């Protein structure tokens, strides 16, 4: 198995002793099949135990290892070092558009708040009891929302979204994609409750359809698509409400 020496330039920030972040370089002997996360683990275990970063599954499932790698938002457990240009160094920074807590760890409070705001869970029409039995869903009904249910909350889409950077109140790609996911679910009747957030200015209308979120999403969720579809649905709502007032409940 071939090994290659790669220099990793990592953005470090110690909130207790430093006033701003700085780059620190580490030379890592990388194996052919390594991902960037392996290199970070190597640094942590062998070179510098103070390096902080989040990770858990090492298989693109938990969504905790998102970082900027050579300027691109990526899951560090999915970014193979062999895919980066030979001889060059690899630059690793915390996800952009989020405040840095420490080193590669970002503050995700804003994202968590937004996620909660859209009520990302099934809201049934009437409460179901155990006696009522399980929900039934046809493959077709599942297919309606399945793509949007693949989100792992990695926040890469927020790091890719220039709109989120310019207008931080924007609910943002993943939270809106999840809204769509539940709205499309045949078991769910919570759309009217979510609509207040979706149809607000900070909701879908803040999106100018750059489409970067869908390009960086490691799970092919396509948040940009979800948002455009919700724009259309919200517009239809508006017309129905204003042109056919008798429909108003």
């Amino acid at each position, binding site marked *: 198995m071939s090994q290659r020496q790669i220099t990793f330039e990592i953005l470090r*920030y110690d*909130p*207790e002793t430093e006033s*701003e*972040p700085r780059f620190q370089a580490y030379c890592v002997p990388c194996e052919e099949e390594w991902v960037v996360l392996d290199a970070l683990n190597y640094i942590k275990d062998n070179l510098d135990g103070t390096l902080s970063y989040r990770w858990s599954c090492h298989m693109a499932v938990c969504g905790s290892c998102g970082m900027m790698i050579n*300027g691109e938002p990526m899951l560090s457990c999915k970014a193979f070092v062999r895919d980066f240009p030979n001889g060059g160094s690899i630059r690793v920074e915390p996800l*952009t*558009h989020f*405040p*840095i*807590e420490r080193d590669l760890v970002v*503050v995700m409070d804003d994202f968590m708040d937004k996620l909660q705001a859209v009520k990302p869970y099934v809201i049934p029409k009437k409460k179901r009891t155990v006696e009522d039995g399980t929900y039934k869903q046809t*493959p*077709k009904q599942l*297919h309606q929302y399945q793509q949007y249910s693949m989100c792992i909350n990695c926040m890469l889409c927020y790091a*890719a979204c*220039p709109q989120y*950077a*310019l207008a931080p109140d924007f609910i943002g790609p993943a939270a809106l994609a999840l809204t769509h996911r539940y709205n499309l679910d045949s078991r769910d009747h919570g759309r009217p409750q979510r609509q207040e957030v979706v149809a607000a200015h900070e909701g879908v209308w803040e999106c*100018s*359809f*750059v*489409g*970067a979120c*869908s*390009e960086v999403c490691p799970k092919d969720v*396509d948040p*940009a*698509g979800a948002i*455009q*579809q919700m*724009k*259309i649905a919200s517009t239809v709502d508006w017309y129905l409400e204003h042109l056919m007032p008798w429909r108003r409940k």
Partner: protein
Amino acid sequence: MSRNPYVREVPRTTWYMRNRRYIRYMLREVTCVFIGLYAASLTVGLVRLAQGPGEWAVYVNGISSPSGLLFSLLALGFACYHSISWFNVTPKAMRIPRGDDFVPGPAIISAHYIIWGVVSLVFLLMMGVL
């Protein structure tokens, strides 16, 4: 342990220079300015037409001058870029159910080109160009 999160500022006027995706997006958006200018030029033409044959001739001379032609050519190029970049993202906004699945993206994009072609043909026929 004390918290002291560090906020990285985003340049507010040059943000779109940060990567290729943003530049591509800006191009798509900026090209609509030329479409707007072309529409304005057409409106002026209508006004001139209403004003009489003399004014109309001046307008026609203007748009068939080298700079007028260059403008039309530029506007056409940008209109094509604008339309193509929008056509390519239409499948994202349109999920058309077909059986248990959805109509595939390439089919939706092709449909847009076909409609574009047909509408253009009808107009060219109406204007007697073809």
